[in-house]
């Protein structure tokens, strides 16, 4: 006769143990998925812009270097920077009521500060554009990629082209902005291209730095 007792293996209902096993398996899968998801989502998301399209160099009559006492330089109409794919009309920018530089109304167009010299006149002509909109890249998205020697072309109201060559690309913290270096008077014909850069502060919804490109006219 078969004897029972403590050496016999206990039998369990298969339904009960199957449920327990399912719970453990499900729990481990959920915990594992949670751990994997946590690990994989710890990096910041870098939005990507469309690929760069280098533009052809503009053609047209190049502005003759104006002699002293010549008629005032014509107003700027548009800006092309072939190496970073920029081609934009130039709107007029003034100062805000608090004296700060007005910015273009949309991210797709750049603007010339009318209080600054005209591009090609003696002094530093100021052109500003947005690095991005709320959802994508702006007209000056690639401004910080310019290198000394790159060229910018300004078409003017009289049909002539003023050609500028980049001399410096700098980044400045906005709360320590060097007004004299950027806007101050110069004795030759220069250009300043300005956009935002650096870290974006989500609490104030603004970038913490400005990128400033310095360029001088070449004939």
């Amino acid at each position, binding site marked *: 006769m078969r004897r029972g007792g403590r050496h016999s293996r206990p039998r369990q209902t298969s339904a009960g143990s199957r449920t327990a096993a399912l719970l453990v398996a499900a729990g481990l899968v959920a915990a594992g998925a949670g751990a994997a998801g946590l690990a994989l989502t710890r990096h910041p998301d870098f939005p990507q812009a469309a690929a760069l399209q280098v533009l052809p160099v503009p053609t047209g009559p190049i502005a003759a270097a104006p002699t002293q006492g010549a008629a005032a330089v014509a107003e700027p109409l548009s800006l092309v920077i072939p190496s970073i794919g920029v081609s934009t009309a130039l709107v007029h920018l003034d100062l805000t009521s608090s004296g700060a530089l007005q910015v273009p109304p949309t991210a797709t167009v750049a603007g010339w500060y009318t209080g600054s010299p005209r591009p090609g006149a003696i002094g530093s002509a100021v052109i500003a554009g*947005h690095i991005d909109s709320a959802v994508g890249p702006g007209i000056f998205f690639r401004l910080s990629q310019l290198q000394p020697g790159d060229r910018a072309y300004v078409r003017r109201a009289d049909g002539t082209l003023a050609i500028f060559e980049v001399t410096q690309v700098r980044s400045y913290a906005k709360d320590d902005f060097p007004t004299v270096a950027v806007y101050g008077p110069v004795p030759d014909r220069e250009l300043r291209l300005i956009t935002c850069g650096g870290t974006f502060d989500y609490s104030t919804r603004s970038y913490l730095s400005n990128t400033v490109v310095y360029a001088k006219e070449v004939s």
Partner: protein
Amino acid sequence: MRFTRFVRRIILLAALPLLLFAIPAASVATASAATSTGWIRLAHLSPNTPAVDVYLYSFGDSSAQIVLHHVAYGTVSPYEQVPTGDYTVAMRAAGASATSAPVLSASVDVVAGKAYTVAGLGPESGLRLQVLDDQLTTAPGKALVRIIQASLKQNVVSVNWGGDTLQSSLKFGVVSSYQTVSSGTATLTVSGGGDTATASVPLAAGTVHTLVVLDGPKGLQIDNLLDAAGSGTDPAGAAATGFGGMAPRAPSSPLPWLAAIGAGLLLAAAGGLRFRSRRVATQAAGGHHRVPAARS
């Protein structure tokens, strides 16, 4: 061996996001040129000296950085932006060989952000090269003016602008100091020895001018050189040219994932407990379910 390779891979994976952060910052730093610059221009202001060739050398170089050929009296070149440092300016007779001894030479130490005019001044018999320190900035809303008297025929001139006397007796070959004037357009009058020249001259706010008195084909002549200009009014502070659409977005909240981990562990614990309690229960109740032991 396999463990260290595994650890190495983990470290590389962890380091990759750090590299992505570093690359954009590095590209801005290397794109900016570190050179400081100043400006130089050259002028021939000696009425009875024939045209010259003017050479600008970086100090110690034997080949010139800039050469201006056949610079005649009254010519002032545009400012050239040059790296800071020591330079030599040499004047030779027009057409003379570049290796011939110069008629005159002078040295200029170009300091960052400063501008200089190197001018041939005086009569031919006493020709000299003078290095002028040029101003670039003015008081807000004002203009800055100086006068170079380069007329040999009128040894002493007086200069009036609008109602103001800028210079009452300026001698030939002298460069006046700078004067601040109210901006605007007015008539500039230069008089000497009965000869007078007038011009309507606009002096805009924030501009610096050098007025040059010359012996022109018809007598006294004034040239108005715009030395420097900036914005009429400088913008205050930085430019708000970005909305953040392309800014890196912070990692998403870890909470949903932590909740999943927590819930999963709870489920697994519940399953484990149930499994364990089933074992205990069946152990305790084991006798009832088996063939009854034949206890005798």
